[in-house]
C-alpha cells in the first residue's frame, strides 16, 4: 500500500479531480461573462478625523478651534486642495483630485450614525451590522447579497484580511482572504484528499464549510497562475494598497466577485495628529487612486464607499490631537457616481451647532448613503438590508 513512489502534482488533476468541472468555472471563461456590478466597502477603523480629511476651509471657526492642527486654506503652504470653494481635501489626498475632477468621486460630509455611541468597538459593530443602537450577528453587506445558485462563484463575497469582518458575516457564503497568493494549501496532495473527505462527511456543517473552502482555493489558484501587473502605471501603497490590489486582481480575473471589503486602521489620533494623519492619508489616498486607475474602464461597474465608526471632536484637545466625536466624511468612488460634489447638509461649527457642544453633527444617516448604493447598484431594497430603517429622499449619489 505504501510502496509506489510517484507523486501526482498536476494542477489539472487537482482542479478537475471530481469529473465534471463546476459550472462557475465554465461561466468565468466567457468574455463579458462575470462582469456584474461590484460594491466595495472600506472601513477606516479608529474614528478617522473627517474635519481634517475634508477640510471646511471656509469656516473661520475651524481655524479658531484647531490652532495647531487645522489644515491651512488652499493656496497656503501645505494647504488643502480646493474642491468647491468651501471644502478642500487634505493635501496628502492629491492622488484623488483627478477623480473629483472627472466626476467619479463624491463626498458626503457630516454623515454617520444617529447614535451618540463613542465606544470604538460598539460603534464599529453597530455600523457594520447596519443597525445603529444594536449589534446584529450578521452584517449589511452580507444581507445585500442575493441567495446563491449553483452557478454562484465561490469568491463572490470577499473580505481582504485574516478575519471575517462583521460587515460580511451572515447567511450568504463569504470568504476572508489574508493574501491572495497565500490562500492555498501548503500541500496539494493533502488538500485533494481532504476535499473528498469533507465532501463525503456526514457532518453537514463541516461538509458545507469544506466545500466553500476548497472551491475558493481552486478558483484562487487558477487566478494566481496569471501574473498580475496593475494597469495604467497604478502603484498601490502599503498593506491597504495590497488589499485593494487583491480585489482588483479578483475583479479582473472575472471570477464573479460581487462584493468586497477591506479595512485600514490607525486613525485614532488622540495626540500629535499632524505627525500621524498625513502618512496614513498618503497610503489611503494613493491606494484608492491606484485602484481606480488600475480598473480603468471597469470602474463603470464599480462603486466603492468608505466609512468610519464616528468622527472626532471639532476642537483639538490638549495634545495636538482630537478625541472621539460624531459626524464624519464618507467617500463614494466609481463610474456610476454623481461625483464632483459634496453631499449632505453642513451643520456648522458654532458651539450651539455642535453635537453635545463638542462634535460635528450628523445630518445624513450613513444608512441613507449605503441603502442608496445598494438599491441603485446592486438592486436590493433598503428594508431587507437595513432592518428598521426607512430611507428618506434620495441624495442623488448615483447617475440615473
Amino acid at each position, binding site marked *: 500500500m505504501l510502496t509506489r513512489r510517484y507523486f501526482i502534482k498536476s494542477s489539472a488533476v487537482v482542479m478537475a479531480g471530481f469529473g465534471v468541472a463546476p459550472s462557475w468555472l465554465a461561466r468565468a471563461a466567457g468574455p463579458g461573462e462575470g462582469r456584474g456590478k461590484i460594491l466595495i466597502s472600506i472601513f477606516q477603523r479608529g474614528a478617522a478625523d473627517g474635519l481634517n480629511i475634508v477640510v471646511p476651509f471656509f469656516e473661520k471657526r475651524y481655524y479658531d478651534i484647531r490652532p495647531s492642527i487645522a489644515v491651512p486654506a488652499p493656496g*497656503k503652504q501645505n494647504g488643502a486642495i480646493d474642491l468647491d470653494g468651501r471644502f478642500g481635501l487634505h493635501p496628502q489626498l492629491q492622488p484623488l483630485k483627478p477623480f473629483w475632477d472627472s466626476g467619479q468621486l463624491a463626498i458626503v460630509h457630516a454623515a454617520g450614525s444617529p447614535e451618540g455611541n463613542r465606544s470604538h468597538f460598539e460603534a464599529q459593530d453597530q455600523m457594520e451590522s447596519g443597525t445603529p443602537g444594536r449589534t446584529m450577528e450578521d452584517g449589511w453587506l452580507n444581507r445585500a447579497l442575493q441567495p446563491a445558485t449553483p452557478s454562484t462563484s465561490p469568491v463572490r463575497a470577499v473580505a481582504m484580511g485574516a478575519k471575517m469582518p462583521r460587515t460580511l458575516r451572515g447567511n450568504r457564503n463569504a470568504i476572508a482572504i489574508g493574501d491572495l497568493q497565500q490562500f492555498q494549501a501548503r500541500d496539494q496532495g493533502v488538500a485533494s484528499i*481532504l476535499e473528498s473527505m*469533507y465532501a463525503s462527511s456526514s457532518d453537514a456543517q463541516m461538509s458545507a464549510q469544506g466545500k466553500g473552502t476548497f472551491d475558493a482555493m481552486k478558483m484562487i489558484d487558477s487566478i494566481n497562475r496569471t501574473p498580475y501587473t496593475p494597469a495604467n502605471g497604478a502603484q498601490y501603497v502599503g498593506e491597504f494598497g495590497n488589499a485593494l490590489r487583491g480585489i482588483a486582481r479578483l475583479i479582473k480575473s472575472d471570477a464573479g466577485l460581487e462584493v468586497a471589503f477591506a479595512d485600514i486602521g490607525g486613525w485614532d489620533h488622540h495626540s500629535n495628529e499632524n505627525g500621524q494623519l498625513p502618512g496614513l492619508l498618503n497610503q489611503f489616498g494613493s491606494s484608492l487612486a491606484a485602484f481606480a486607475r488600475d480598473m480603468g474602464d471597469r470602474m463603470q461597474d464599480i462603486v466603492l464607499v468608505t466609512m468610519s465608526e464616528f468622527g472626532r*471632536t471639532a476642537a483639538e484637545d490638549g495634545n495636538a490631537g482630537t478625541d472621539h466625536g460624531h459626524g464624519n466624511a464618507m467617500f463614494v468612488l466609481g463610474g456610476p457616481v454623481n461625483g464632483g460634489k459634496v453631499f449632505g447638509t453642513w451643520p456648522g461649527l458654532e458651539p450651539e451647532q*455642535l453635537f453635545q457642544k463638542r462634535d460635528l453633527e450628523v445630518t445624513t444617516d450613513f444608512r441613507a448613503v449605503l441603502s442608496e448604493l445598494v438599491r441603485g447598484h446592486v438592486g436590493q431594497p433598503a428594508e431587507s438590508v437595513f432592518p428598521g430603517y426607512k430611507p428618506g429622499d434620495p441624495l442623488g449619489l448615483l447617475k440615473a
Partner: protein
Amino acid sequence: MKRLPRVLSVVVLLVPVLILGQTTRRFDVKLTPDKQIVHVLNRLTFGARPGDASEVRRIGVERWIDLQLHPERIPENPVLEARVEPLASLKLQTWEINEKYAPPQPISIRRPIQPASILSPLQISKLRDGGTVEERREILMSLAPDVRGELLLTLPPQAIEGLTELQDEAAKARTAQQQAQQAERRRLNPPLNELLTPDQQRQVRSGTDQEKLAIINSLDPQKRQQVLRVLGQQNLLQGLPALRREAMALARPQDLVNGELIENKLYRAIYSNHQLEEVLVDFWLNHFNVYNGKAQGRILLTSYERDAIRPYVFGRFKEMLLATARHPAMLIYLDNINSQAPRDDASLPFAPNQQPPRRPGLNENYGRELMELHTLGVDGGYTQDDVVAVARAFTGWTVAEPARYAEFNFNGNMHDRKEKIVLEHKLPPGRGEQDGIDVIDILAHHPSTAKFISKKLAQRFVADDPPQSLIDRMSATFTRTDGDLRAVLQTMFSSIEFSSEAAAQSKLKSPLEIVVSSVRALNADAVDTFALAQRIADLGQPLYGKVEPTGYPNTGESWASTAGILGRINFATDLTAGRVPGVKPDMSRFNFKLPAVVATELLGSAPSAATIESIEKGIQGKEVTPSMLATIVLSSPEFQRR
C-alpha cells in the same frame, strides 16, 4: 469479546431510533463506556495525549473526574514546572513588574528650546497670533542663526507664513534634527552589518539553533545586547526562548510581560496534569474578559489571572465576582476609574481656543457589563435605571497610581452618596464602599445569575445549545450551595446530558483548542510556545486579546468559517513537518502504521468509514509519509470536533 457491549449499545441506540423514526442524537441516551472515556477527555482537558485513555480506563471515569475536580490531589507534571520556571514576571506583584519591566526611555537629543527664554511675550504673540510679515521677519532675523534654527522647530506654521527664506531654513532645521536623531539611534542600536562579520551574519540569520547560540554567546556583553535587540525585532529567535525573552526585555519589556503570560497559558494547556483547572481558568478569564491592549491591561493581566481568577475556579462564584470587581485590571478596562458622581453644575461656558470642557461624571460601562455579561445576562431582568444605579454604587471604586502601584483604592470624593435602588433593593445613602459590596451580593444571589452561569458552563462543557433540564438542575445546585462552583460542576459532570450521545463530538474546537489538542495528540515537545501563540492568533483567537468584554464565545459555531478550515489544514501541515518553531513532534511513532491505525490513535476512537475511505482512496499510488497521514487526520472533520 468486545462485540457484546457493542451490540448492546447499538440496541440502545436503535430503540429510540425505531420508536421515533428519527436519527437525531439524544441527550437522554448514555454513551458506551469506551465513548465516555473519549468524551470526558475531550471536554475536561485540552485534548487527549497518548496513554490518557488507558489512564482514565484504569482509574474509572467517575473517579478520574473527581480527581480533576480536586487538583490538589494530583501531582503536577515536572516538565510543566521546568517550562514555566524561567517566566520570571509571573511571580511578581504589579508594582514590581512596573519597576522591573519599565519601557526604555525614548531617544531625544536635548530639551527643545523654550521661546520664552529668548523672546519677549510681545514678540511671541506677534509670531503666533498675527504679526505682519515685516514684524515677524524682523523678530526672527534679530536672532543668531543657530538659535533661530532651534526656535523654528517649535513655531506653528503661521509664524513663518509669507517668509519663504525662513520656511526653507525651517525645513533644513527639521531635516537636520531628523538626521541627528537617526544617527543617535544608529549609535545606540547599530544594524547587524556593523556588529558582525558577514559569515556571522549568515549564521545568525539562517543557521541552526546551535549555531545562533554559539555566536551570540561568543560576543562581549554590549555587543550581545545590540545583536539580540536586532534579532528580536526581526523575529529570528523563535525556538530559542531564553534568548528571545532576553531580547524582548531589552527592546519591549512590557510586551515580554504579556508574552510570558501567554507562554504560561499554553505550557499549562499542553503539559499540566490539572487539565480541568486550566480549562476553567480559560473559561472564567473569558467570562470576566480583560483586553491586553488597553491602557495598563498588558501589565495588569498577570496579577488578574493569578489573583482574581485562578484561586476561585473551584470556589464560590461570589468571591470571584468580588475579586474581579476590585481588581485594577477590570476597573481600568471597563472605565470605572473615571466614573464619578454626576455634578449639579450647569454646563460651563465654551471659551475660544479651548476644548469643550469635559464634565466629569458617571461612566456606565462597568455597571452595565457587570449585569449584562458577568451576572444576570442580557435578559436577566434589569432595566436602564438599574444600570445607572449600579454605576452610581461603584463610583469611587478606582485605582491608585495605575502606572506604578496600580492598587485598588476607594475614593470617597468620587462616590455618589445618595440613595440608590438596585433591582428593587434599596441601598441607603452615605455608606461609601459598602454600596458596591452590597451590589455584588445582590447580583450573586439573583436567580438569573444562577441560570446564566449554569448555561454558560453547560455551553462550554456539554453542548452549544444545552437542554433546559440540565441548566435548571445546575442552577438549583448553584442556589442551594450559595454559588459553590465545584458543586455545580459535579451536578453537570454526573448528569446524563453530559454523558449523552447528543453531547459527544458536538462542539467545534476553537483555535486554541485545535492547536493545543493537535500538539497533545502528537505528544509533541514544546520548548517555546511563542510561535504557537501566533498561529492561534492567526486563526482568529489572539490570547488575552479580545477587545470586547463579551470575551471569546463558548459556542463552537462562531469559529466556523471557510478561511478557518484552510488555516487549520495549513497549521496541521506545518506542525507535523516540524515547521512550527519551538514545537518538535516525533513522527517516527507512526512509522509503518496503516492509515486506520494512525487515525484511531490521533482521534482516540475509530474514525468514520467515510474518513478512512477518503484517505485510502486518496493515497493510492502516492508516497505517503507519517507526517502526511497525521496532517490529514488532524485536518479531518472529526478532529475539528470535540
